[in-house]
């Protein structure tokens, strides 16, 4: 035999998972929500996410090549997920140049500044989205009303999201119970017939994606289920105490970015804790903050801030919440 044998440490086999496979899985899980979005918001919802992905990939490529001078990592697909999720959190009537700024911030500030995939403490798509939200409050808070597939960018009618209507109404001193009469009913919201950002409207489609992610073992149930439960319980508690001034818990679950955020964004590996216990703590934090901001804060929606804030706690959680060690010796004294 003239070939040299390869010698390495065990194990000598490797599982099927790879980074790019996982990322592809997330993209697949997002497809149903995308489809619903295109159905409700028209062509813009089709091409804006594509553009967002393209922007993200271009920025990642350029930064890597010219600033970090490292080999390109586009293949791993994380920029695609970031691009897609960024677009999904934005309204479909957003000017393209704003989208481009968002992609630059998401990739440039949110991800590459820290060194690229796996290093960033904050969710890049949310960094991009919150940046835009604060920079362009006008454009980011005018929501197209779902009209159907024929809607085009130009003739979109803007209105408020259900949460927006609620907050606005509460500001002017109206009762929540009367306000809720004007918003779509729960079934409509479940299917996505309401104003909102491209990817967040259809709870049904997002849940379908969730099931896919669970099935493919891409994520575990801990984060999404805990967030949704916390939101449900906390808002339910408030509602029971004072139904006149608080929206019902189902309303809270179906509106805004709770579904998208809890299933796809809070679960981002890089920015979430490493242990089930840690994930649950993190998720409870997100749930509570979301409801607190929605109920008492200046903004109608709190998921994006809640996730970013809890992202900041992740290193602490990882430091102090450890998995249950096998054969842990209880130290006394």
């Amino acid at each position: 035999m003239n070939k040299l044998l390869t010698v390495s440490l065990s194990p000598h086999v490797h599982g099927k998972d790879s980074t790019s496979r996982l990322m592809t899985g997330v993209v697949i899980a997002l497809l149903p929500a995308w489809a619903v979005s295109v159905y409700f918001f028209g062509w813009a919802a089709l091409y804006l996410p594509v553009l967002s992905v393209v922007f993200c990939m271009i920025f990642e490529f350029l930064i890597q090549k010219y600033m970090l001078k490292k080999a390109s990592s586009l293949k791993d697909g994380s920029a695609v997920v970031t691009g897609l999720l960024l677009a999904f959190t934005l309204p479909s009537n957003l000017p393209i140049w704003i989208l481009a700024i968002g992609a630059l911030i998401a990739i440039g500030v949110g991800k590459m500044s820290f060194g690229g995939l796996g290093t960033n403490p904050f969710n890049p798509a949310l960094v991009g989205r919150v940046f835009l939200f604060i920079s362009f409050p006008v454009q980011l808070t005018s929501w197209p009303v779902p009209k159907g597939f024929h809607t085009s960018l130009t003739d979109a009618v803007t209105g408020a999201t259900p949460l927006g209507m609620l907050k606005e109404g509460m500001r002017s001193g109206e009762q929540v119970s009367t306000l809720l009469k004007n918003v779509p009913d729960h079934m409509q919201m479940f299917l996505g017939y309401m104003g909102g950002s491209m990817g967040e409207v259809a709870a049904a489609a997002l849940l379908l994606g969730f099931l896919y992610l669970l099935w493919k073992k891409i994520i575990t149930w801990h984060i999404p289920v805990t967030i949704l439960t916390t939101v449900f319980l906390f808002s339910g508690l408030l509602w029971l105490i004072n139904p006149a001034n608080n929206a019902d818990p189902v309303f809270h679950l179906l509106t805004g970015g709770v579904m998208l955020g809890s299933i796809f964004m809070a679960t981002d590996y890089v920015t979430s804790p490493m242990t089930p216990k840690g994930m649950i703590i993190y998720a409870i934090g997100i749930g509570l903050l979301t409801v607190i901001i929605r109920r008492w804060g200046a903004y109608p929606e709190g998921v994006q801030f809640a996730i970013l804030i809890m992202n900041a706690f992740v290193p602490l959680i990882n430091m102090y919440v450890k998995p249950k060690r096998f054969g842990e010796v209880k130290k006394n004294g």
Partner: protein
Amino acid sequence: MEYFVILISAIFVNNIVLAKFLGICPFMGVSSRLETSVGMTGAVAFVMVLATIVTYLLQYYVLNPLGLGFMQTITFILVIAALVQMVEIVLKKVSPELYQALGIFLPLITTNCAVLGVAILTIQGKYNLPEAVVFSFSTALGFGLALVLLSSIREALDMVEVPNGMKGIPIAFVVAGILAMAFLGFAGLV
């Protein structure tokens, strides 16, 4: 004003570092390690509350009666400086480890604008004495929260390859920026 509102406001909504831009130097300086940042928080909280009480009395019982409002800055800072020096001397004796860890930052608490800033803000905010104490203490907590978060993140970043140009201070500022962004979510809570 309710104490709870003061608390929430000072910790989250008007966080001293992330919203008010005070105390940034120690915020950047001691945040590279979690342990020191916890110690720093303690030191700052102690000095802040103490300084607020003393300056409060000074303002309302000396300066105002004498019509010396313009002397606020100079008297306050003198009091704070003396106070910090005392803390430093005492700490060196009582806990040399903490003294070592906080290193040059102890004298820098003097020049931590947060301390003077809080003293002045207390007067501007027209708090009464108990409120002033709550305010200064919760401000210190807010400082500590931001500091602990930043330092835990920086410690985690030590383990990964941050691009050369961004290492150290720049990336810490980026983190602070994103933190400040996230904390804007608390806007309107009070």
